[in-house]
């Protein structure tokens, strides 16, 4: 896959279709790839990489990059294309300045899962035939790739690219039975007190690093209300109070109807707070109240919270969930 991607990127750079490539750059270890903009063939050959640890969603970088000089090539996984489409719908990306290559994806790996197996001192990871041979200074171990699959990929909603200029690999389908609302249903089945205790417990670990917000493609405000000293709610202290926990709930409200469920918030959370569950609750509610809707699937679709119809559910009809 990496070879095909690199070859195509070199061709598109050489023929002038694009003048930059947005992809992933090699790390110190086999798993710590950094999103990077490549501006020359030499640079691409030197440090371009693609493997199971390239989980980062590159769409958000295009807000800035698509406003640059010339066209940029970007590699998008199926879930990333939803974020890209949503940003197009919100007029945040200049579509004409981006060349999208959709890349097939069968799920990304989560390093934390490998570490939880006791693997440390990792010096190499050979990936083949659905297995990872993890080389460490303490010895090698072979693990099934599926045992290291990221949680968000285990409930992947779609292997279909909703936008692309060309594809590398196969295009897939929307996954109908992805079970992504299973945990939301469990939370709904709790009593309000239990649910409150669950979220207070999870959110008590928050260190207010803002990684969830800053990585989120739906959080694209020029200045966040929580960073604006004139807003009256700017706040960077992490205190375990209800006001503090509200940060995440307000954020979930703000991205409701625009969140594509890419799962980046939970991927980057250093404290492993399952933030995506807040977004999924909103998605599930909107599906039930206003009909099935997937943000980013169609940039021309009217979003449920931005559309009025006479048949809209009245506030007093709101579920008691």
């Amino acid at each position, binding site marked *: 896959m990496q070879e095909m991607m690199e070859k195509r990127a070199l061709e598109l750079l050489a023929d002038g279709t694009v003048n930059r490539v947005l992809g992933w750059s090699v*790390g110190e270890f086999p798993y710590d790839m950094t*999103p*990077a903009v490549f501006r020359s063939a030499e640079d691409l050959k030197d440090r371009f990489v693609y493997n199971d640890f390239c989980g980062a969603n590159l769409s958000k970088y295009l807000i800035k990059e698509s406003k640059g000089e010339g066209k940029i090539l970007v590699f998008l996984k199926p879930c990333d294309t939803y974020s890209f489409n949503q940003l197009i719908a919100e007029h945040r990306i200049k579509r004409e300045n981006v060349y999208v290559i959709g890349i097939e994806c069968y799920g990304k790996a989560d390093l934390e899962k490998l570490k939880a197996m006791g693997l440390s001192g990792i010096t190499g990871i050979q990936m083949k035939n659905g297995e990872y041979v993890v080389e460490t200074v303490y010895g090698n171990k072979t693990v099934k790739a599926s045992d290291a699959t990221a949680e968000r990929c285990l409930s992947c909603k779609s292997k279909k690219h909703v936008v692309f200029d060309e594809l590398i690999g196969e295009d897939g389908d929307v996954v109908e039975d992805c079970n992504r609302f299973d945990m939301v249903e469990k939370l709904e089945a709790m009593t309000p007190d239990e649910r409150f205790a669950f979220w207070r417990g999870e959110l008590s670990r928050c*260190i207010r690093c803002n*990684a969830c917000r800053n990585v989120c493609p739906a959080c694209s405000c020029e200045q966040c209300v929580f960073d604006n000293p004139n807003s009256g709610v700017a706040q960077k202290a992490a205190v375990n109070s209800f006001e503090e926990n509200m940060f995440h709930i307000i954020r979930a409200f703000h991205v409701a109807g625009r969140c594509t469920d890419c799962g980046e918030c939970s991927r980057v959370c*250093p404290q492993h707070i399952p933030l995506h569950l807040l977004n999924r609750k909103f998605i599930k509610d909107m599906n039930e109240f206003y009909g099935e809707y997937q943000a980013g699937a169609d940039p021309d679709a009217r979003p449920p919270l931005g559309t009025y119809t006479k048949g809209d559910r009245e506030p007093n009809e709101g579920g008691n969930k």
Partner: protein
Amino acid sequence: MKKLSLAKLYDFFAAIAAKEALYLPVNNEVGKAEYKRWSEGVELSHQLNTLRSAKDFFFPQTENLMEFKMEGKKIDIIDTREACDDFVIFGVRACDAASFDILDRVYLVDPVDSYYKNRREHGTVITHACGKPAETCFCGTFGIDAADPKGDITVWDVEDGYVFRANTEKGEKLMAATADLFEDTDDKAVKAEQDKVREILAKMPLADLTTEGVGAGLTKEVFDRPEWASLSESCLGCGTCTFVCPTCQCYDIRDFDTGHGIQRFRCWDSCMYSDFTKMSAGQPRPTQLERFRQRFMHKLVYFPDNNDGVFGCVGCGRCLSRCPISMNIVKVMKTLAKGGNK
């Protein structure tokens, strides 16, 4: 040196906890180690290190500094400082123990930070030598020995127990108070353990990381390096690196209006944030490039410049593990070492 048998570790914890608060690394609900207060039944984590650093004990993420009460035109200023109770931290690794020296250089020099000093004086640090370092470890780059950590007491795992060595008066006092649990031992087992760990460290991928290209006296050269643009290009501007870092020491001071008074508090700040050191004249570091550069200039150039060459990093590797986009101080150092000082 004194030896504690495997079976007596929790007796040792109980003996300390009977007199003062004892904190140690404990696995939390998501399986990550974090410092928690020990009580009967709480188990010591066997993970290499805590996800957050130990700096909270002396420099908490948020703390109240003072209060103001207003009645009509009268304002009362209330000093909320109280002498801190004695406490013990067990299980601090060499990197985090070294971070306390770095924080001391900031908070215990004139003007002394009384809040920090109060906690520092009342805390006893028991360090735990590393047995199984990770690939993200690079404390050796900064002259820190993972096999011989500092602290008031140092503890090593040996085959059938633990070997303790008191390093300071505080440490000796604590060992004396629990003397009946220990037996005398020589340093043979410790030496063997140290040899083993140092051998492992030498095989780690970052064993050869040097501070070439950075350090005291290089402000202009490093500041002007063109590589900052590409290094900072994909930085999200979040504060993860700062908040998991054991040496990041910047804070903000704000007032919280309680409705009938003001609580003046300070909280950790991050140079990665857009409002960091923002003044009436504006933001001195307008883009992420300048903010990103500030973080690494501070640790790798400004800090050693002002502190006898001591770097503001202890190589704990937390930022390597936690950065959402895997950009970190090691990648910065390696890039700066390449083609620097031409």
